[in-house]
């Protein structure tokens, strides 16, 4: 209860997009544009409010990490960015999310079309078990009934982008589930990339993987952010510092702090951020 005024104060300092963009511009050499703007985003499961008004911007062709303790709403947050939150029964959203200036929660927006522009990789690798590796990569196109004349090229490009091509080029006909966990996750990344999305959302993509597989995915994210706008949820702070240009710290449904990753980790301005990154809770 007594934390209320402090929280409001924090939101004023870090929630405003102007201050955020100003700081981002000041610190990066290349001029950056905002790909996604989130304004006062609130989300519920039934009666439980899991996001209590988030405002932030996600920069184009950069990677933004969302960190925070379990249950802070970070997965819900990125699921709101491609309208996957509403897939769950009893889920509700309020607020505005602009993708290239268009509110994705507006009436005329088809969430199905939106998800073709905003791809997603999940916590647990989930290749389609009835499909081969090749079919998995092409699944996005096939599901929508899009015919592509250069399917082989597309499969190779997507698998190369996901750093999986060399490992699977001779076994493309095998089931996607025959791969190791790390390979399955890269297959899921390739599946998302095959649709050539503009934004790639990743919901704790390494939490089910061993350290070697995790390192491979992290290297991959490092490369992907040059081409795509990446938003990655992680509970691993080292991972955020390795792969993200910007980091947002969420705590119990509120945005506590948001800024350049190096800034946030070396010089947190909110005591809760400091407590979290120094391991005092979480």
């Amino acid at each position, binding site marked *: 209860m007594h934390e209320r005024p402090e929280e409001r104060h924090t939101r004023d300092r870090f929630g405003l997009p102007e201050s955020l963009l100003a700081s981002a511009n000041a610190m990066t050499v290349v001029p950056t544009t905002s790909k996604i703007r989130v304004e006062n985003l609130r989300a519920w499961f039934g009666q439980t409010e899991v996001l209590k008004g988030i405002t932030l911007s996600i920069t184009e062709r950069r990677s933004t990490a969302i960190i925070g303790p379990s249950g802070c709403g970070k997965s819900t947050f990125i699921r709101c960015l491609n309208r996957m939150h509403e897939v769950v029964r009893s889920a509700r959203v309020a607020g505005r999310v602009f993708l290239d200036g268009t509110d994705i929660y507006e009436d005329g927006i088809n969430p199905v079309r939106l998800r*073709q522009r905003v791809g*997603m990789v999940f916590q647990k690798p989930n290749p389609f078990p009835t499909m081969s590796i090749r079919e998995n990569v092409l699944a996005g196109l096939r599901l929508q009934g899009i015919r592509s004349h250069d399917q082989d090229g597309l499969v190779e490009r997507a698998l190369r982008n996901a750093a999986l091509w060399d490992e699977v080029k001779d076994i493309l006909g095998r089931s996607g589930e025959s791969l190791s966990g790390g390979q399955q996750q890269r297959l899921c990344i390739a599946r998302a990339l095959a649709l050539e999305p503009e934004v790639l959302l990743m919901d704790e993509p390494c939490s089910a993987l061993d350290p070697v597989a995790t390192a491979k995915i992290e290297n991959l994210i490092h490369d992907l952010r040059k081409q795509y706008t990446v938003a990655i949820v992680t509970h691993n702070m080292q991972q955020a510092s390795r792969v993200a240009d910007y980091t947002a710290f969420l705590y119990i449904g509120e945005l506590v702090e948001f800024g350049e990753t190096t800034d946030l980790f070396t010089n947190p301005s909110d005591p809760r951020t400091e407590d979290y990154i120094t391991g005092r809770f979480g």
Partner: protein
Amino acid sequence: MSQTQGARGDGLAPERAFKAICLLALALPLFLLLVLVGKAFADGWPRLTWDFLSGYPSRNPQLAGILPALAGSMCLMLLTAAIGIPLGVGAAIYLEEYSRPGRLTSLVEVNISNLAGVPSIIYGLLGLELFVRTMQMGRSLLAGAATLALLILPMVIMASREALRTVPQSTREACYALGADRWQTVRRVVLPMSLPGILTGIILSLARAIGETAPLITIGALTYVAFLPNSVNSPFTALPIQIFNWISRPQAGFHVNAAAGIIVLLAIMLLLNGTAIWLRARFQRRFH
């Protein structure tokens, strides 16, 4: 130490007793089944010739054959499948993938579970009134198949829902995240994944339908048919009805025919159930 061992020894006795009871519970019905099947085979096996399979009914038990009943049962199965499968699987897809939980949905669900327990003769009465009389289908194959389709509908729906439920939510989400809509997700991912379970449910339901006698008698399937069905509107008979008819005759020769008919019916059911097991095993191998 010795006390612990003693306690353990005591603990084993009820374990052994329970195991024995379970074994008995398995052995008893199995034994009865063996006796029944054994008797049918002993009686009917010599009668099971090509002439019997390809012959028409006759007043002379030695000349009577089972062909119209066999053909009737097969046609009935195909028609029942054609009516019951799309309706049943469609209803299951709606209930699992589209419906929002609410009063109407739970009402439908409770009714489906209840219908699975309704005696088959009630379905026969419904079929008689609805299909034979009101819809004026007459005592035709179509009326019989529609009645049997109603009968297996709850089973097909429940088995299909069970199968659809085994597809993890994460797989559906993967699909939505690729920009697929609900129908594309169901058609391309959820249905293929749940196909083994759905097929098993369908085949087991059909195996039950082929053995049903009461609803067909109620809607007026004939007991003496000397011709093959030539359209969905033609009168018909079926294996269980033919068997029922023969067994109720006083002459011993017909009882032998009935036993032979039972063997044929059993063989078809075994074939169907075997197919169900084979299909399931085949798809499971392909997926894992």
